């Protein structure tokens, strides 16, 4: 999915100079170590905040690799590729209350992860934004953990509203909550992330058809368009063909994000998506990412979809992801 620029804060800041950020006006500085508890989406972001998010992304990548390494199982590839998305969403876009998580999420923005196998990035971001103690990342995939291999409500982990893992189900659930919001005249948004390989599941197209017909226009579905799945690239396994044409033919308002590993671009796009809501169509963001982004030997290949690094590989990866002020779990 396009040549991947080398990852690093330096790179992002260089891009920052070129692309104008929407209103870099001065607003109160948020320390990310304090839990985010208000609506970022109504405000713009300043340089200091942005650099905090950049740092968070770096830390999340460290978390992902360590979590998977620790238990020698889990899915680093998609997790690394979606790091900017999760950091942007939880760090800037969502209106949410990490410290007082409620299942119903009235007057909050909700998020659903349909491609549940990329739980590591979600768990890390949930912890880093205050949903549960960062130390709990240590329990990932271990017996009795709340951090199950695939996300679940069964063990009561704050931040999760439905189990996923068996692919293809998340969009339907997201639609249901979006309908509930409409019934309750709650004008907040419902977000959902789905894999691209996942779109081979028929249920996804049932959901697309429904959302268009019923004008579910408080719903923003992002596709992790990394071009990869377990057995190879999408094109090798079962081509998605002209993906934007498919979504458009199914009646969605389709946005294409070419730089899904550029934090600024992701924030800008998700805000744009929110502005497109309420106009009678569900919104799709087809987000090009690099699987394994940030760890050179994991990057751009399906081979690290669901494989854990050995000790040597772990050290190599960590060397590419320097420590941050947030500290490891």
């Amino acid at each position: 999915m396009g040549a991947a620029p080398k990852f690093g804060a330096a790179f992002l800041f260089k891009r920052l100079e070129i692309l104008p950020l929407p209103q870099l006006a001065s607003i109160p500085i948020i320390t990310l170590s304090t839990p985010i508890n208000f609506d970022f989406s109504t405000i713009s972001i300043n340089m200091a905040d942005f650099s905090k998010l950049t740092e968070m992304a770096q830390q999340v990548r460290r978390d992902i690799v360590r979590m998977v390494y620790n238990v020698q199982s889990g899915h680093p590839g998609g997790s690394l590729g979606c790091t900017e998305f999760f950091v942007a969403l939880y760090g800037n876009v969502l209106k949410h209350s990490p410290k007082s998580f409620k299942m119903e999420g009235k007057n909050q923005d909700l998020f659903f992860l349909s491609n549940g196998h990329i739980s590591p990035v979600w768990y890390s971001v949930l912890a880093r934004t205050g949903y549960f103690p960062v130390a709990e990342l240590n329990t990932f995939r271990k017996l009795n953990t709340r951090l199950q291999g695939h996300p679940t409500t069964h063990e009561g982990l704050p931040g999760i509203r439905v189990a996923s893992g068996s692919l293809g189900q998340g969009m339907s659930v997201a639609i249901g909550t979006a309908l509930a919001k409409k019934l309750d005249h709650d004008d907040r948004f419902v977000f959902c992330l789905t894999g691209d390989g996942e779109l081979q599941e028929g249920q996804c197209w049932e959901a697309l058809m429904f959302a268009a017909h019923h004008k579910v226009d408080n719903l923003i579905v992002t596709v992790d368009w990394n071009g990869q799945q377990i057995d190879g690239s999408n094109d090798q396994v079962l081509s998605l063909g002209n993906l934007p044409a498919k979504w458009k033919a199914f009646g969605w308002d389709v946005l294409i994000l070419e730089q899904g590993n550029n934090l600024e671009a992701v924030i800008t796009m998700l805000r744009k998506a929110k502005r497109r809501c309420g106009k009678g169509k569900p919104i799709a963001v087809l987000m090009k990412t690099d699987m394994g982004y940030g760890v050179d030997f994991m990057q751009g290949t399906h081979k690290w979809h669901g494989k854990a690094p050995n000790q040597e590989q772990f050290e190599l990866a960590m060397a590419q992801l320097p420590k941050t002020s947030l500290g490891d779990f």
Partner: protein
Amino acid sequence: MKLEDIVSSATRATRDGFGEGLLELGKQNPKVVALTADLLESLQMHHFKNAFPERFFQVGIAEANMIGIAAGLAIGGKIPFTGTFANFSTGRVYDQIRQSVAYSHKNVKICASHAGLTLGEDGATHQILEDIGMMRMLPGMVVINPCDANQTKAATMAIADYYGPVYLRFGRPAWPVFTPADQKFEIGKALMLAEGSDVSIFATGHLVWTAIEAAKELAAEGISCEVINIHTIKPLDETAILDSVSKTKAVVVAEEHQRNGGLGDAIANLLVHNLPVPIEYVGVKDSFGESGKPVELLEKYGLGKKDILWAVKDAIERK
């Protein structure tokens, strides 16, 4: 109650009871919402839809999506009732129910009509005989199969007051109504219909009436049957069953379902762990159904009154 006092003055489809109950619920509880997958009137959901159009969702022929949407509505605090044929309510969407509803413990009511052979002429592709078996294997799922229209209405209303996933199974044909219209429905509480001493007949759904008829005939022959309506297959009323069996020491289980995996196996499971006694099943013997009239089919596939008579005699003989 005495057997001869159990009489039926009218016939009505159990799905009619569902439609009525759902409408009533709509009035009582604004959280109740309903969904169908292009089978509005078959499920008698048009009453609800007409009264509460904004709380009704037509999903089209997309059952998997319907289950997911229902789970989402439940997250948003609604009490969704999904409605389609029993086949498309279970086997078509098992994995969706498993993950998004059962494992996620969502307050979704999966309402399934046209279960079993009595669906009739549409034939085997539609006649699901494995749905009870599938649903009872799911941890946390409540499985209910009421016996007549009145009880179906009562069950429909009762499950809205219970928080958690429920599978409610009912049928297509007009069927004798014999339970009191005002009888409260208690989830998980078996109903003693007639006490007896020679054999316990545990029946569910349409076959409860058949069991009553059989028991009346057997009474005339001097055989005393205890007839118990197991409207809730899960959680099973273990106490009621064990109490009855410790007295009678012989069991017949009657259900419109495969003999594999259904109420028969649920009761056998309980008894082999606690009180192993002879059991006879009245159910479909590991075969698909076919097109035909409901009663014709029940007879051809061994679910008629005479099949219960024989089963009772066999069970008693094996004591």
